[in-house]
């Protein structure tokens, strides 16, 4: 993903970014094993609310989607579905090795290799799994990026929608979920 480094926001956008950076709703979706470090991050030990972040149940009101590790194809379909339900500006933070290059599941038939082929990733966090300190630092970094207008993954997704869709279809076959199939 090539990001345009130039800051071409207008004043209103800058103000908007400033406020949204200080109040981020994280979507409550445990996509993979990195989610196990989210409870400590959210609760009293690390207390992510100090950053103005809190969990949000519905995608429509959430700002940031955490991809906490590997994604099976089955989950990726749902993740794309719920990412597209989110309102712009929306951000993706990818946790751990698996989102970057497949992780230990590099040769698995069920999990994807790299996330940025299917969804625009704003920030990667290293670790398998990342410690709460790293997660907190990642959020802090994201906040900085939003303030500076650098977290523009969602724009990239809009502009390159065809490319993303093609990749999604290539790997998944179908993105539309037919939930009745197994009943």
């Amino acid at each position: 993903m090539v990001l345009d480094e130039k800051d071409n926001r207008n004043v209103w956008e800058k103000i908007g970014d400033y406020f949204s950076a200080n109040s981020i709703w994280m979507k409550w979706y445990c996509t993979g094993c990195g989610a196990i470090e989210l409870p400590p991050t959210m609760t009293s030990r690390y207390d992510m609310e100090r950053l103005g972040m809190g969990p949000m149940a519905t995608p429509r009101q959430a700002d940031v989607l955490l991809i906490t590790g590997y994604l099976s194809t089955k989950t990726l379909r749902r993740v794309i579905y719920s990412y597209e339900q989110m309102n712009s500006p929306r951000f993706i933070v990818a946790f751990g090795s698996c989102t970057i290059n497949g992780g230990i599941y590099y040769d698995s038939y069920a999990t994807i290799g790299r996330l940025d082929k299917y969804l625009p990733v704003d920030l990667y966090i290293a670790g398998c799994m990342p410690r709460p300190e790293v997660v907190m630092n990642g959020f802090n970094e994201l906040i900085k990026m939003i303030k500076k207008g650098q977290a523009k993954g969602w724009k990239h997704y809009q502009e390159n929608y065809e490319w993303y869709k093609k990749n999604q279809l290539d790997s998944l076959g179908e993105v539309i979920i037919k939930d009745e199939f197994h009943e």
Partner: protein
Amino acid sequence: MNKEKSIFSPIKAWKYLLRKPITVLKKDIFDKPREASLRYRGFHQNDWEKCLGCGTCSKICPTNAITMIEVSTLEDKEGYKNERPAFDYGRCTFCAICVDICPSDSLAMSREYLHVSKDADTFYFLPDSTGIHGDSFAKGYVRDSDSELLDLTRYEMELEPVGRKTSFMEIVKGYSLERALAESARCVECGICTDACPAKMNIPEYIKSIWEGDMKGAVEYLYKTNPLANVCGRICTHMCEGVCALGHRGEAISIRWLKRFIVDNTPMDEYEEAALSTVTEAVNGKVAIVGSGPSGLSCGYYLRTLGYEVDIYEERALPGGVIRYGGPEYRLPEKSVLKDIGMIEKAGVNFITNTKVGRDISLDELQTKYDAVFLGTGFSLSRPLKIPGYEHKDVGYAIPFLAETRDYLRETSDMPDVHEKAVVIGGGNVAFDVGRTLVRLQQVKYGADFVSMAALEHRDILPCDIEELEEGEEEGIRGHFGYGPAEILIEDGKISGLRVKKVISIFDEDKRFNPKYDETDTFVIEATQVFIATGQMPEYAFFNETMLEEIEIAKGQVKVGKYGQFNKFPWLFAGGDIVQGPDIITGVANGHDAAEGIDIYIRAKNN
């Protein structure tokens, strides 16, 4: 069962208001992230000084995260590869198995864990000892003896302990199947041994074949680069073992004995099939080889695989050169030599024995009869040591003595003349061969042995292999190391002893051989027979005058170009001791090289 309490009962938790909070402070997260534990498995650190580039980490990695990257700026060092592991944190699971298995102990996990970036490429890096951001975090998880994943101790073979010096029985028994499997399982397939081997043998591959139980495949690997596997499986100088990755923290793999296990334990039909699988029809030309030592045999075999007719000229009655007449029976039994030479003969190499080039047939004649000629004549003469008394009849030389002993054991000649007390001058492997042969012959003849040895070098810098020294001393050789020969004392026409003097230094400031002695510190080693084993030299009587003029000879060795080809005489090739030396495996390598060179030369000439 718990009774329901009032909704206000948890109110006592307010007491925590005044206690230290459990929450990690913001400054401990953002400004200076909390320090990880002493064993933390964070990002990798790799000490480049120690790293061998063996790639064991990349093989064990369950996530395929480690790639060996060639680093061109590293200098070439024997036993090291100029490759270093790069880690993909898009794969790594921080399991630290790579750390536990690292043969050089260079890898460690640091206590650094923080890396956040929008650029996925920054998650792939080549660590040095400062870690991912160059911040030199303290080491976290390191290997210790509990988490060791290598098998560092050698599975020893049994030696014949008692009665070994009274016979010429082979000392080392060879691996049992069980132990060979255990020993071969230790290998980490790094291939550093291959780089160190003069013949570039496919060592990891044949060890793997043993481990997989594919003996035929193992023999095929052996014959790819070495047709003297039986011989080398017994008396190779095993430079491979000197650089073995496992040798850095433990004991090197017994590569030589595993090779011997292959040749001793492959059924003969499979062995023959594997050894001869690459031999082809002789259609491309005719090549003469002078001397049937290791280089000649090797050259002959590989020429047969390349499709040439080969005649090997040998001065003595039996082909083999040093392997037939040099190495002592207790280390290199006749049957092994026969197996190798037999296989080369089966490959279609023709031996013309009792024919000395330069005496019975001239080199010029060979040139006209053949397309190319290979010289592998070796260092066939003993170098005389001109100290007072050296011309006495009881002063013997290593090479004829060892050859006579082999003939005696083959029952083609009488026992060499041995006295009850003898002294050997020299401290190399050949000197020990002579000394230990003497011990056995004395035991056979007198039922007792008395062999002394004098060498310039001190015990810990002797040029021989350590096994030779240890086994020799076990067999009762009396070593006087650090003493040089002064004169051979003669009384009434008989030798009465060897006077030696203490050595102060062997080399002068220019590192040239120039021993200095303490003339006052001398004593006499009691002996009635003296053997000189201080070196060998070549014989170049077969060169004609123009050749002698054109060919440059330095320190006894001829100067040749690539493939052992003489620059001025493109039809003539050379290898073995007269080119490189001084061991069998180098000879084999030279022979193989020359075979390829000859092939190129003849093909070019024919087209």
